């Protein structure tokens, strides 16, 4: 009987693919499943180790750890208040600078800019997000800080300092580094992230809505403010929250320019500290169980804070996304 030499070959291939069907699928699926679960385990592990590491401090200080202002390695008395407030103030300044700028940039990129150069400008702004945070730190310390010290801060002190109420924010000697500079650099760093989200949600607004508003004689600003923005409000807020989450946790850039001083001050020009900067500066030098545990406790506070901010931001963005796909 004539035997096709390729028959043998074919039948092994058949068996191989048969085995592949029977065992390949479950194995491959389990493999991908296991690694997906690993992502969950990483987050679970982070929460667990932070709680465990912070436990000695939390046991001694209790929940008051969060609102105690002292930070004294000698008397072993620690509280998170000063770095926590520093974190919030710098993040707030970052938002005050970052949000209007992001809005302006997103408006420019979606409505004003000629089509030919939209993409290059968007890429340039995304590159700003790619620059490592340590570069912002070194740039802030050596370039911006002297500029602040010599020009901007004296100007702020002489012009805004004498005013009632807000004058208290601009007191003290101009030393360059401090909360204001840290907030400014943070604002610059989160700006590309917020801009990217805002641009995306602006573009998700149906073109018909824009065109009908323009057709009624609305100006560019009115279209953006009264039509585009109300339509994608949740998405914009979600983007801002994601930016805020980043600003709260940013470490290196802040560590360079904040001055690392553990005291509360009403002046924005005074040096301060943030949770992440305290960790970066003190963690490897901490001696004694309670000191290390307190630092990990700071980390836990920061993690809880950013987790909620990011989770809310993400939720809002998902909601906005669901709405545009439905529409």
């Amino acid at each position: 009987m004539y035997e096709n030499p390729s028959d043998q070959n074919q039948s092994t291939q058949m068996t191989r693919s048969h085995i592949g069907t029977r065992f390949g699928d479950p194995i491959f699926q389990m493999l991908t499943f296991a690694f997906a679960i690993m992502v969950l385990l990483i987050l679970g592990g982070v929460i667990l180790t932070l709680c465990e590491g912070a436990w000695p401090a939390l046991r001694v200080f209790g929940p008051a750890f969060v609102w105690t202002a002292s930070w004294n390695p000698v008397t072993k008395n620690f509280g998170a208040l000063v770095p926590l407030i520093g974190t919030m103030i710098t993040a707030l300044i970052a938002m005050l600078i970052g949000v209007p700028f992001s809005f302006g940039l997103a408006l420019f990129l979606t409505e004003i800019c000629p089509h030919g150069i939209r993409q290059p400008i968007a890429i340039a702004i995304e590159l700003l997000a790619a620059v490592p945070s340590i570069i912002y730190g070194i740039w802030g310390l050596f370039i911006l800080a002297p500029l602040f010290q010599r020009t901007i801060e004296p100007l702020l002190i002489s012009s805004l300092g004498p005013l009632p109420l807000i004058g208290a924010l601009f007191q003290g000697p101009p030393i360059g580094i401090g909360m204001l500079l840290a907030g400014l650099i943070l604002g610059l760093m989160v700006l590309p992230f917020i801009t990217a989200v805002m641009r995306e949600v602006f573009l998700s607004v149906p073109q018909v809505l824009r065109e009908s508003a323009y057709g009624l004689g609305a100006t560019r600003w009115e279209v953006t403010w009264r039509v585009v923005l109300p339509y994608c409000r949740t998405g914009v807020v979600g983007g801002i929250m994601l930016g805020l989450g980043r600003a709260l946790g940013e470490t290196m850039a802040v560590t360079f320019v904040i001055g690392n001083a553990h005291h509360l001050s009403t002046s924005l020009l005074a040096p301060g500290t943030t949770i992440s900067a305290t960790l970066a500066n003190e963690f490897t030098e901490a001696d004694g169980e309670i000191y290390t545990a307190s630092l990990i406790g700071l980390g836990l506070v920061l993690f809880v804070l950013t987790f909620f901010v990011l989770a809310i931001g993400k939720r809002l963005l998902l909601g906005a996304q669901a709405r545009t796909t439905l529409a």
Partner: protein
Amino acid sequence: MNRSIVNRRHRIDLFVTILSTVMTGAVLFTLGAILVTLVWNGLPAIKPSLFLESTPPPGSKGGLANAIFGSLVMTLLGILIATPIGIFAGTFLAEYARDSWLAKTVRFINDILLSAPSIIIGLFVYSIVVVGMGHFSGWAGVVALAIIAIPIIVRTTEDMLLLVPDALREAGAALGTPRWMVITRISYRAAFQGLLTGVLLAVARVSGETAPLLFTALNNQFWNANLNAPMANLPVVIFQFAMSPYEDWRQLAWGGALLITMTVLALNIAARYSVNQRARS
């Protein structure tokens, strides 16, 4: 029609248009200023000794060879660990689970990890690896960098696999191809450049990370290829040298900063280029 109201509306519009143009200009100017000052201050430090000599004690000459080597090794190993994990997890989200509650949870948690403060990752790795081993080590740095890289790769893998048309998968399935083969031979092949982009972006992000290395790899003044010992790396050396009062250390810090920025920007542009190539074809 009331002329003055129309004029006012147009004035507001003009004002906002100019303002947002100026804002964009200011941001682009800042990006330019950062790059120019980096090149201006860093270029004098870029000479052969930077790549050939180890970090010096203050007051003597040296380079960043040990730090560059440490950064390369740790980044490479971190990415080697993160890539399979990230790609498989992303595959699970895009190919198997899609809209199940588990996929939604993993996606959500992954996005949180993506923007979680990297210093927290450093604390985490410190608690499990450094405390476990009893000392700082290059391996701890590798683990920290891998954990930073995983969410980035998961995210891009999922996005890129979802771009592959389902018709391709169905065509494969109609020929009797098992599912895992559809994924590896069809989906992966169709999305290859996208997956590569994700890995490149992860390399770019990881190579500039400083905070998670502070408590894991620490630093090392000497040439060291032993991953069980503390390992020098560019970002931490830049941090230490820039904060020091010594002029020659600061000079090296600027050189390192220029080196890192150029690497990161080049990687980003390369990643973007590969995506554009894909979109065109």
